[in-house]
């Protein structure tokens, strides 16, 4: 079995009950925070934490579900790539059901496209090396958490001469997106900052938001006590009128972050302007391959480039991602848009705000 760390303390009822009590004492006015990361969204739903929050306390989801923020134009391009004869797509499972303008990767599979669900970019390298002599295109979706592993895989493909491993670069960078959302006037009183992304970029990445925009930022882990601890620190900052970066996840996150991971990422990728679902194009918020790796870019190899399309009519995923609206504010929520038949991407992934709300918090339609 895997040697897994003992996390039982972070799930103990005593610790959780004490933190819930402390939070109820701290919340003396309406407080609205944003959990930036999709894994936080999922954890809050899974542990039923929302039912433990005090009155006047609200936690809304942010732009941290990688599937949710992938623009429809990119999804369409991925589906077009999948339909090219001879191409094998390697992707994380979440992308398979994301609806494009016409169908999804799942539909393309049913029509004969070769789509392999992988758990790691190294699985895609294995496919390219051992299974398929034809091009294997890895859909490089995710944030600073996933990008270093993809970069390391590309370097390994270079080192071992595996030329048929390509990528569709669709990585996103978290700080430019947060900056974009918050610069228009924050709809929230503070940020529950992502644990995994911060392990790479470091707690220091939030200093401009905290100092420049007066927004309390607390990095949290993913166990129930981790999340509640981070929320109490946020509530305390609001009460005391402070806006600082605090790290409530020191067992994984340091001030400087993981320098080696960033070096690998920066050796392979460089920032580019990219489109986010619902947020539009944000300057320098995506990653594209550097010049030396350009022949691995599936977009140029096959001439498949994202074509801008409008978001589905009525869908407010963009507003949900900004924390301006909640899933139940959407007219399509739980009527036209359900996990069985998602309209917007926030309903597809378990980390999406709408799916998490529908599956675990929402009204019962059984």
């Amino acid at each position, binding site marked *: *079995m*895997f040697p*897994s760390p003992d996390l039982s303390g972070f*799930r103990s*009822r005593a610790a*959780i*009950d004490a933190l*819930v009590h402390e939070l109820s004492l701290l919340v003396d006015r309406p407080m609205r925070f944003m959990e930036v990361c*999709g*894994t936080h969204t*999922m954890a809050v*739903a*899974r*542990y*039923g*934490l*929302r*039912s*433990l929050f005090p009155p006047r306390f609200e936690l809304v989801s942010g732009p941290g579900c*990688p*599937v949710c923020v992938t623009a429809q134009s990119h999804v369409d391009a991925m589906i077009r790539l999948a339909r090219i004869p001879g191409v094998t797509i390697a992707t*994380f*499972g*979440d*992308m*398979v*059901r994301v609806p494009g303008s016409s169908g999804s990767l799942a539909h393309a599979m049913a029509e004969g496209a070769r789509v392999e*669900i992988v*758990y790691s970019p190294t*699985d895609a390298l294995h496919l390219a090396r051992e299974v398929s002599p034809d091009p294997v295109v890895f859909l490089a*979706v*995710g*944030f600073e*958490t*996933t990008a270093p592993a993809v970069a390391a895989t590309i370097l390994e493909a270079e080192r071992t001469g595996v030329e048929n491993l390509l990528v569709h670069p669709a990585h996103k960078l978290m700080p430019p997106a947060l900056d974009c959302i918050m610069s228009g006037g924050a709809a929230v009183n503070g940020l529950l900052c992502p644990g*995994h992304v911060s392990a790479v970029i470091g707690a220091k990445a939030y200093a401009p938001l905290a100092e420049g925009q007066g927004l309390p930022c607390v990095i949290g882990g993913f166990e*129930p006590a981790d999340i509640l601890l981070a929320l109490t620190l946020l509530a305390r900052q609001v009460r005391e009128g402070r806006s600082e970066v605090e790290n409530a996840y020191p067992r994984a996150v340091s001030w400087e972050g993981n320098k080696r991971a960033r070096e690998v990422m920066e050796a392979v990728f460089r920032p580019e302007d990219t489109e986010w679902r619902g947020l539009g194009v944000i300057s320098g918020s995506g990653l594209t391959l550097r010049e030396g790796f350009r022949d691995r870019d599936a977009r140029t190899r096959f001439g498949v480039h994202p074509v801008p399309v409008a978001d589905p009519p009525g869908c407010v995923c963009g507003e949900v991602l900004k924390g301006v609206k909640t899933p139940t504010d959407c007219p399509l929520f739980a009527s036209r848009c*359900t*996990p*069985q038949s998602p309209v917007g991407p926030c309903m597809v*992934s*378990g*980390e999406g705000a709408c799916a998490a709300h*529908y*599956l*675990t*918090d*929402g009204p*019962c339609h*059984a």
Partner: protein
Amino acid sequence: MRDDVILLDHGSGGLASAELISQIFLTRYGNPVLAELEDSAILDRPAGRIAFTTDGYVVDPIFFPGGDIGSLAVHGTVNDLAMRGAVPLSLSVSFIFEEGLPVRTIEQIASSIAQATARARVSISAGDTKVVPRGKADKVFITTSGLGVVPDGVELSTKRARPGDRILVSGTIGDHGATILTQRSGLTFSGGLASDTAPLHDLVRSILEGATGAVRAFRDPTRGGVATVLCEIASRSGLEIEVDEASIPIRPEVASACEILGLDPLYLANEGKCIAVVSPDMAKDVEGLMHARPEGQEAAVIGEVRDGRPGRVILRTAAGGLRVLRPLSGMPLPRIC
């Protein structure tokens, strides 16, 4: 067998088919009824009502820790009969083989079916074998149908759940689903993870005989897992169910695999477990009867039926929070980060 792989000829209905049937199947699970090799089997009519069920098996991989597609096909159909209180009598087994499948593989599956039927004390009275060209099927698909007899007085249905009834699970959850998904993902977990595939009719009979009238319904939480079955019970009975996460038995290996793969064990398939809806005054008795059998040693009371919003299932999480459980939707997919 003269050939060491399956050829299209083995499904032609001619001499090669006859050789396959006589040398592989009849030698392993033959009996006088099956050996007649007529177009249909003639069975004596048993006393009582007949239960009848059918199920297809397409599991990949076909061999996995704890079992294989053969034992799964027997247990699955035996358990579908058992969940209605039926005593399983007889099964049919129909194979679709992919051309080129090693005969050795078929022998292993047939031996596994023979062992599973002997353990469950059911006979196989009908069968069929087809072969499709390579690539038109994945190795082997099996369909089993089953006949059983429901003893007089046994009336099991999820519609019979009443407010106050307790929900029991006969053992640890998610073992089969976690095993298959880790095998499929190519992750190598050492130790511990194995399918729970097993027949449940003896457990059911010991409960029905030992605690007469206690059980309103049994369900086996296969695809869709415990959460989906609880939603079905709540929906069909028009009642609400609350379950307590901390009381649900789960192996640490399964919990770890779920964390790594981003899966929820409440939605993973089980192939040797049942959910029982039991009248409140008899819940402890039924739990004791489950504990007395090897397949029910880790049984636990996990929840309660109550008036409330019809069809709703609420989970009290180990953290003390509340959340709604919904039926499984979509494939269980691994998380992205």
